[in-house]
C-alpha cells in the first residue's frame, strides 16, 4: 500500500483538492468562490495554494474579466492522480 500524500493530507489542502477534484477536468474555480467554500482567510488560502502549486497539483490562472482582475484555480492531471491515490490510501487504511 502506498503511503499518504503529505502535501494533500493537510486539512485545508485536503478540502481545496477535494473541491477542485469534484469539478470537471476543464473546469476552473474562481479564487473567491473557493475561499468562501473553504471558509479560509486570504493569507491562509495563498499559503496552501502556493504549496499545492509548487507540488504541481494545481494551476493558477490570472486574467481579466472586463476590467476586473480574476484568479482561477484548477487541479492538474498530476493533482487529480495524487488525490485519487490519497483517497485510495485512506480507504485502504479504514478497510485494512
Amino acid at each position: 500500500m502506498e503511503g499518504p500524500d503529505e502535501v494533500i493530507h493537510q486539512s485545508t489542502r485536503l478540502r481545496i483538492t477535494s473541491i477542485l477534484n469534484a469539478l470537471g477536468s476543464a473546469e476552473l474555480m474562481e479564487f473567491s468562490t473557493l475561499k468562501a467554500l473553504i471558509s479560509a482567510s486570504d493569507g491562509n488560502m495563498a499559503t496552501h495554494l502556493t504549496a499545492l502549486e509548487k507540488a504541481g497539483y494545481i494551476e493558477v490562472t490570472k486574467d481579466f474579466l472586463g476590467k476586473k482582475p480574476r484568479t482561477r484555480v484548477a487541479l492538474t492531471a498530476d493533482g487529480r492522480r495524487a488525490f485519487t491515490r490519497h483517497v485510495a490510501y485512506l480507504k485502504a487504511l479504514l478497510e485494512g
Partner: protein
Amino acid sequence: MQISRDEAAQALSDINDARSRVDKLHGYGDAAPFLILWGMVWLVANSTTQFAPALADMAWLVGILTGTTLTIVLASVQAKRRGARDTNQAGQSAQVAIRMGVSQGVVLAFFVAMVTIVWPLDARQFNALISLFWACTYMGVGVWIGMRLFWIGAITAVAILFGFFNIEHYYSLWMGVAGGGSLIAGGLWLRRV
C-alpha cells in the same frame, strides 16, 4: 507520516462534505437563471394585468412563450455543460434527464387534470393556483438541491397566499412585485456562494 484510522475517517468525511458543497454550488448555479427568468415573466405579466387589463392575455401569452423557449434553451446549454463536467457519467445524466422530464410531465398532467375538475376558476384563483403550484415545486426541488431553493419557494408561497386572502384591488401588482420579485431576489441569492 502516520495517519490513524480516526484521521482517515475524518479526512474521507471532509472529502464527501466538499463534494456535496460543490454539487450544491452547481445545483444553485443551474437553478438561478430559471428563477430570475420566471420572476421577470411574473413581474411583467402581472404588472400588465394590473395597469393595462386589456393587454393582460397578450402579456401572459408572450411571457409564457418567451419563458418556455428560454427555459428549453437554458436547459439544453446546462445539459451540455453538465455532460462536459461529468464525461464518465454522461449516459447516466441522459437517463436522469429523461426520468426528470417524465416526472415533470406526470406532475403537469396532474395539474391540468385538477384544474379541469375544479373549473370554472376566476382569473384571481387561477393565477394563485398556478403560482402556488410553481412555488411548491421549488420547495420540493429545494429539498433535493439545497435548502435555499426550498426557502425561496416557501417565501413565494406565503406571499401568494397573503395576497390572495388579503389584497383586493392591487392583487395582480402584488403577485408581480412580491411573487415575481421574490423569485428574482431568490435567483440572485442562489448565485452568491
